[in-house]
């Protein structure tokens, strides 16, 4: 199992980068939806 550490690191990094990126998109979408709800509420009150 020579250089298994490099193989392991590469694989972990591939999935970690994709996972973190997908989570960042989901969080940005959730924040925008919240903002939009607030804005709609403001519009209804005017």
């Amino acid at each position, binding site marked *: 199992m020579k*250089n*298994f550490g490099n*193989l392991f690191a*590469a694989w972990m*990094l*591939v999935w970690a980068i994709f996972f973190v990126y997908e989570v960042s*998109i989901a969080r940005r979408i959730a924040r*925008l939806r919240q903002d939009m709800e607030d804005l*709609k509420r403001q*519009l209804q009150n005017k």
Partner: protein
Amino acid sequence: MKLRIVATFLVVALVCFAGYAALFIAPDERTMHEVQRIFYFHVASWSACFTAFTVAFIGNVGYLATRKINWDWLGVAGAEVGVVACSIGLVTGPLWAKPVWGVWWTWDPRLTTTFILWLLYVSYLLLRGLIEEPGRRATLSAVFGIFAFLDVPLVYMSNRLWRTQHPAPVIFGGEGSGLDPTMGKVLGLCIVSLLCLIVLVLADRYRLESLRHEADELRQEVESRTLGSESLSTKAPS
């Protein structure tokens, strides 16, 4: 929503199977052994990267041709997902290179043009952040995006045009190139699985941009109504 959940489940299953195939089904490479298995997702990440940058290019050209903002959303989605896939390729490459070449990085044509590609698209994303006005931002970033895309064919051709430290292409590499049939099938599976994955991520990123646009429109409406009610209240005493 239901379709989205089914698609996510299928893609995750496909990616898991591809990972299993790359680790346990693909035969051991004679000289590099285990570390060569990085190849399956290293090459697949470049296919994903080039696909995403092609999507960005289509979005950039589409915006300049039609001036419809949807094309700009496609452009930024492709560029951002492409940068993520490019970063994966740039990280997995050195992890493979160190035990095989003895160095993490070398400024050979393939690696240098790839690093420039990453820098160009990171600049594209930074440029968008600097321009406030949506129309101007879309136009300037579309022009810059088309310029950045010129590096994609250069990266692809670099180890065909010049003698490089990077291995010669094993697919469409001409005489003497090629892969063991099982390795080829596993590589194909990994490429397809990552392409499916980036299609899902691209769809999410596109949705984010369209929501951002909707939120901006709502914000403008709130501001205009606030200004309208303020001007009415200042006129009222006279």
